[in-house]
């Protein structure tokens, strides 16, 4: 549905995006994550036909972003990270404006506007002035705008930025609903917890380079060899346990406190079992031993730290 092929964008001497390639299949929710200034918005603007690439190509719904922008515009609903609204317009007028701009016939418009307002829980605000809405309402209105022409692809740049926790949860529920409707969604964020629950795949970008892409499980696989193991021991066995940890060829960094030892481990499951054996054989009373489950945040931190290359 969305294809980015060797996309690069250069501003003078600054290379904002460097040879980026990824593919998003139909019905996928692709989370585009990276720190501020990583090149997420540049890539998104390129796919939204707003930016000419220095090199490379993009295809959305089978249409070339550079050669056939009109067909791409027809296929996408785009929500920029920072957007303004027109003064002196009411909510329904705002949506009517964009519905006309997307060439939707009048006899369908009334129904569509009512539906998107309902979907985004804005029906009560139908006759309010757009400029008087709160930030969260404006975000929802902009999302409503992206849906008026029922595009198969949604490109959302930081849709939840600047929202309070409740509005953030509501936005999440909305995106889940859109996922149920079968839309292909490219969504960017620098806050991972926003994406973890409903993204089917993620791409991690930093300094214009794609560091990792694929389903969350795939990426976890990639960093499997960089697992963190944690052991808790009883009594005064910490010193002995620490010595065994240090002696293991797969252990990289060790942190020890109270009765806990936590270490970065570069081995396979077998190696982990052997380490546990050694601890027990040495008479250390192990209370618990196991792999720390990685949160998306930690995955991200590990990837962007250059642990995975």
């Amino acid at each position, binding site marked *: 549905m969305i294809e980015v092929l060797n996309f690069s964008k250069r501003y003078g001497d600054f290379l904002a995006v460097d040879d980026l390639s990824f593919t998003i299949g139909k019905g996928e929710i692709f989370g585009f994550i990276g720190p501020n200034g990583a090149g997420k918005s540049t890539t998104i*603007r390129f796919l939204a036909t707003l*930016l000419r690439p220095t090199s490379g190509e993009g295809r959305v719904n089978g249409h070339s972003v550079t050669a056939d922008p009109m067909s791409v515009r027809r296929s996408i609903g785009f929500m920029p990270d920072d957007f303004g609204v027109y003064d002196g317009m009411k909510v329904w007028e705002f949506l009517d404006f964009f519905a006309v701009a997307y060439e939707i016939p009048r006899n369908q418009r009334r129904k569509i506007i009512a539906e998107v307002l309902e979907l985004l829980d804005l029906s009560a605000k139908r006759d309010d002035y757009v400029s008087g809405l709160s930030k969260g309402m404006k975000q929802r209105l902009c999302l409503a705008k992206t849906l008026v022409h029922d595009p198969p692809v949604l490109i959302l740049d930081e849709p939840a930025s600047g929202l309070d926790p409740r509005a953030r949860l509501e936005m999440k529920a909305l995106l889940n609903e859109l996922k149920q409707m079968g839309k292909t969604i490219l969504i960017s964020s620098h806050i991972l917890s926003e994406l973890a629950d409903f993204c089917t795949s993620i791409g991690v970008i930093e300094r214009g380079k794609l560091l990792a892409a694929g389903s969350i499980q795939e990426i976890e696989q990639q960093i499997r060899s960089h697992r963190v193991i944690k052991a808790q021991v009883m009594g005064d066995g910490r010193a002995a346990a620490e010595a065994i940890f240090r002696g293991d060829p797969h252990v990289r960094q060790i942190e020890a406190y109270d009765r806990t030892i936590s270490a970065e481990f570069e081995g396979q499951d077998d190696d982990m079992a052997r380490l546990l054996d050694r601890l027990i054989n040495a008479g250390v009373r192990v209370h618990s031993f196991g792999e720390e489950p990685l949160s998306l945040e930690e995955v991200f931190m590990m990837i962007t730290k250059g642990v995975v290359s």
Partner: protein
Amino acid sequence: MRIPANPVLARELLVTLRSRTSYILQFLYIIALGALVYFAWPAAETTTRAVGPGKARTLFDIFFLGQFFLVALVAPAFAASGISGEKERKTYEMLLCSPLKPSAILVGKLASALGYLVVLILSSLPIMILCYVLGGLLLSEVVRGYLILILAAGTFGLVSTACSSYFRRTGSALVVSYLVILPLALLCVGLTRSDSPDVREFASLALLPPWCIAAWLVLSILVGRRLLHPPDLGSEGKDVIDEQEELKHAIGVVIDRDLFPDKLFAPAKRTDLMPDGANPVLDKELRSEIFSQGTLMLRVVIQVSMLLSIPLMAVLLFLQSERAAVYVAYVLTFNLLVGPVFSAGSITQERERQTMSLLLTTLLRPVDIVTAKLLAAFRVSTVLTFLLTEQMMLAYIMLQELRGRFWTLIVFLLIIAVTCLATSTLGLFFSALARRTGTAMVLTYLALLVLFVLPMGVVRYFEGDRSFSDSQLAAIAITSPYSAAFGVPMHTGRVEPGMGQTMKITNPILINVFGVQVPNWVLFLAIYPPFCLICYLITCLVFRIRWWRAGGLG
């Protein structure tokens, strides 16, 4: 308070100095002035004190008037965004919360807005001195000229800053500034360019300085008070205007959206969906409030402009009806000032308001967007300008000497309409070209000065020079609506009732086109529509390449 330690000034100067445009503008300005002197300088063999004086005085007059016009035009363009710009960028509250005194903010804003202008004015000093060298000018006259320019820059800058502190939008501040400045500027030119040396001296030394300084003081106190206790902080909910409530407190003109003439300014709000095939941008622009402040700002503008045109109407249309063209010049100048306010921001503001990306990802074609913007800007500027022509129509109906020459009214109205079209089209062109409304506005004003005012200066300079025929001189000024208006044949003096048939009519200004003598206003009316069409097509192309066809928002 030390000015160098003023952070407001430091920030503004830093931004100005960082932009390459300011250097390029100054460079072009000096080149233009230099070229003017080079071509106007008397040939070596004629450089005697006997030839110099007349030329020197004309040159000095042109410089003075040109610079005065520049000050009246550019001072508001820079100063009117000073405080309203802070409001629009939402940095106003941060600024007011700082320990900066209101006076420091005011001085910083004013000095930064006028600093560049003063540098431009002073860079013409060597050229003014050359006029002095030619002879026939007193040093005191040169000094007086500069004194007036500095006084004007200060007064116009302060008026604009005051407007900027009163209104939330730069557009509103600009329009009201120009409305107030236009008659002040005309008055100032009238007094200081008077034929009588006594009047000139009295006006420029005894009358203007104390009045200007008094005005500066009053305006500074008013602005200072508003900055200390700002009544318009915050924006939440304030953008929404309750028109019913507003009407209850309205003084003077009341705009009823359902009545015909009022529909021209403020069409009724939509109550139902747009029809199929409508241009949504045009529909939105036509129905949006001109000043985004309900009908309040609109009423202020209409009332102020009506009020100011009444004395001019009395003198130029009713007491000396043969000078109707001067009144037309006033209307044209009003449009020259106000036209770009509505068109030069039409595309850049989409970017500044961050709505451009929403608009560009729709299926609207560049031609739809550009046409809608042009029609909307043209409508507002034309409607506001034509408000001032009601007085002309009244005079043509009431005065016998004008009634007999009704066709001249139609010519005047056509000249005004074509000028409205030109100011809107050029403004839109620069709006597609520039990235910021301020830049687009200044570029539009410069282009309009070159097209409308500069040719008048050139003609005035060469008047009486035998190497040019009248037809050739008229051809130079063909782009100027002022020249076209003054070329319309009018009667030469007041006509008593019953003597209508014997009144003398001035000769039309004729231009030789392939052997045929054509009145200059006919040519003016003939060249601008195609010029505007070409300009519009180029704007569509520029918009397509620069914004629509990916890349503009990078």
